Structures are given as structure tokens and as C-alpha cells.
């Protein structure tokens, strides 16, 4: 299932460069470039299987932390595949870490440098009319986007007859977050317990 890959230093460098390019293309988040990652890692290079690609995304989405960690898991899996799998020992593990480093440095460095420089510029020029217009003009749009992100997540359950309990949970979470000060982790945990018990 996991044929031993052989990655040359050039391959590792290509991996880094490719994710570096995606970093600059990913407006709206790294996840928007996932289809291109799939094309590169699974179809073109065959460094990852279909299954480990999608489980990298699923695991990172469900674990705490920023979603961009799915990129780290992809790098980890590429490294493990190159080293002969998790059971192959420290050699494979160190390649796994190399994979994390290549993909994470790639996806974070270019965009972070750009963002940091842009923010500094915007801060020194914060009284310019154009800078203020940009921030105030974009504000309502990103608020709309945030609501639509939540909406899209809940609309993954299409069928109201079958999924009404999930909609109910989403509605309850919305109201509790708006009206109470309950800790977010309690709410997420409650959802997880209800789901694990097969009630949803």
C-alpha cells in the first residue's frame, strides 16, 4: 500500500517551493488551495495516497488549533512515506519532521512576510484616507463572509427532515454564544458527546 518513495534533496526543495507559491495564492485561507495540493501531491507526484490526503485534512479540522495544520500533516505523511512508514523507526520520523518543515515553512513564510510588511506600511500610513477606506470598506464584507462560513459548515447537512437535529444543535450553539458566557469548549464538547452517543 505504501510503496517506498525516494525523495531527493531536489524533491524536498520542490515541495517547499510549491507550497511557497500556494502561500501567495491562498487568499481566504490555505484551505482554498487544497485542490491544487491534491493535484500536486496525489496526482502528479504520487507522494500521498488519496486516503492519507483526505485524512490529513479531516484530522486537522477536528483537532484544536489553526486549520492550516493540515499542511503539516501532509508534510508529515510525505516524509513517513519516504522513510518507509511510521514503523520504520527514527529515520522515517526524521523525514516526517523534514516534511513538516518543508510544507509549513513554504505555506507560512511568503504570506507572513508579505502580511507583516503590509501591516507595517498600513500602520505608518494609518491616517491616509485610502488606508482607512480600505479597512472600513472591507469590514462589512468580512463580517458577511464570517457568517457565510458558519452557514456553509451547517449547510453541509442538506436534508432538513433527516438532519434537523444537527440544525437544532447549530441554532442552539449560535444562541448560547450570543446570549451567554458559557465557555466555548463546553459547547463543543457537548456537541461531540451528543454525536458520539449517536443522537444526532
Amino acid at each position, binding site marked *: 500500500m505504501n510503496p517506498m518513495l525516494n525523495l531527493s534533496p531536489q524533491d524536498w526543495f520542490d515541495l517547499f517551493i510549491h507550497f511557497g507559491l500556494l*502561500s*501567495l*495564492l*491562498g487568499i*481566504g*485561507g490555505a484551505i*482554498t488551495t487544497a485542490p491544487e495540493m491534491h493535484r500536486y501531491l496525489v496526482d502528479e507526484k504520487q507522494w500521498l495516497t488519496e486516503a492519507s490526503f483526505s485524512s490529513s485534512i*479531516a*484530522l*486537522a479540522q*477536528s*483537532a*484544536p*488549533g*489553526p*486549520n*492550516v495544520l493540515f499542511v503539516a*500533516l501532509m508534510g508529515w505523511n510525505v516524509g513517513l512515506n519516504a522513510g518507509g512508514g*511510521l514503523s520504520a523507526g527514527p529515520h522515517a520520523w526524521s523525514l516526517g519532521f523534514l516534511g513538516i518543515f518543508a510544507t*509549513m515553512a513554504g*505555506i*507560512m513564510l511568503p*504570506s*507572513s512576510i*508579505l*502580511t*507583516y510588511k*503590509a*501591516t507595517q506600511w*498600513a*500602520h505608518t500610513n494609518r491616517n491616509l*484616507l485610502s488606508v482607512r*477606506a*480600505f479597512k472600513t*470598506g*472591507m*469590514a*462589512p*464584507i*468580512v*463580517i*458577511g463572509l464570517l*457568517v*457565510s462560513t*458558519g452557514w456553509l*459548515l451547517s*449547510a453541509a447537512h442538506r436534508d432538513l427532515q433527516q438532519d434537523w437535529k*444537527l440544525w437544532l444543535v447549530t441554532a442552539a*450553539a*449560535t*444562541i448560547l*454564544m450570543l446570549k451567554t458566557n458559557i465557555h466555548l*469548549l463546553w459547547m*463543543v464538547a457537548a*456537541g*461531540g*458527546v451528543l*454525536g458520539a*452517543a*449517536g443522537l444526532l
Partner: protein
Amino acid sequence: MSEEATDLRQPQSKTELFIVFTLLALQGVGGVLVVVQRELVERRKWLTHAQFVEEWSVAQVMPGPNVVNLCLMLGGKYFGLPGALAAVAGLICGPLVLVLGLAILFGGVSDSPVAQGALKGMGAVSAGLIIASGLKLSTTLPQNPMGLWLAIAFAALSFVAVGVLRIPLTWVLPCLGIVACLLAYRSLKLVAESAIKGKDKDPA
């Protein structure tokens, strides 16, 4: 906005930044943004809602992982580049260790019906939390210099375009964004001009 802004606090050290962002990240199941809004704006009061929306606008428009951009900007605001690095390191390091551990231990378990059910339930909750975050931030719309109705119109348009019509963000952001920024520019300019005129008249 101004009365809110007076009792703002701020982090005391880069270590505090690192720890706070680690804690934020570890609570962020299904999206760190909601936790950042709740903890930094509502609990710790480092930012007002309006300031948070401004920072988030920039983080969202710049390429790359949004929440990383946001933490970078917030860290940089207090302590420059070292602060930015401390905040991003806090955001990434703890969760990375955790997610790797999960990948090693439970790589195969995630297909079980119990785990799938739990994920479904947590997903439904986090959808609600994100919607609520957006609604809370919409309380800043009346302060928008474009005026309340235009601001509501743009928020609604972007919701419909992305959430209902599912038009890719790469189209929605520039198309709506340019129009909104031009209108905001016009309103800000009118305000500035009338302020100047007002000053000119005063001494006379």
C-alpha cells in the same frame, strides 16, 4: 467606540503573548477565530470589536492562512517582529504537537462511527459559534462611515454571494471589495472636508 477604547488592556510581555496564543489555539476546535474574538475582545479586552474587525479585514484579504496572519498582526502591534513571532509560535507549536500525537495514535480510529458521530456533533456546534461571532461583530456596522444601510447591504451581499450562491472568494473579495472601498473613501472624504470647512468657519 471611544468609550470602549479607554479601558483596553494589553499584553505585558512576549511570553504572555506566546502563552495566551497557545491557550487560544488549543481551545480552537473547528476554528480559532471564534476563540480569538471571544478571549481577546470580550474577556481580555485587548481590542474593541471594531478594532478586531479592522484587523480581521486585513488578515482576510492578505494571502496565506488567515488566523496566522491575524496573530502575526496582533503580536506585531504590541512588540514588533519578536511579538509577531511569539504569537505565531504560540498559535502553531502546541497544536502541532497535539495533532501529530493524534495522527500517530488515532490515525485509523477516525473512521469509526463513534468518532464520526462526535465530529458531526462538534462540527454542528462550531458552525453555530462562527455564525454567532459574525453576528456579534455586526454590532460594529452602525459605526461604519459608509452609513448603516450601505454597511448592512455589503455584509448581506457577501453572505449571499459566498454562502448561498457559492461564488468563489477570489471573485467576491475583489469585486465587492473595490466598490465598498471606493464608497468608504468617498464618505470619509466628505467627512474630512466638512471638518475642514467647519474649522475654517470657526475663527471667522
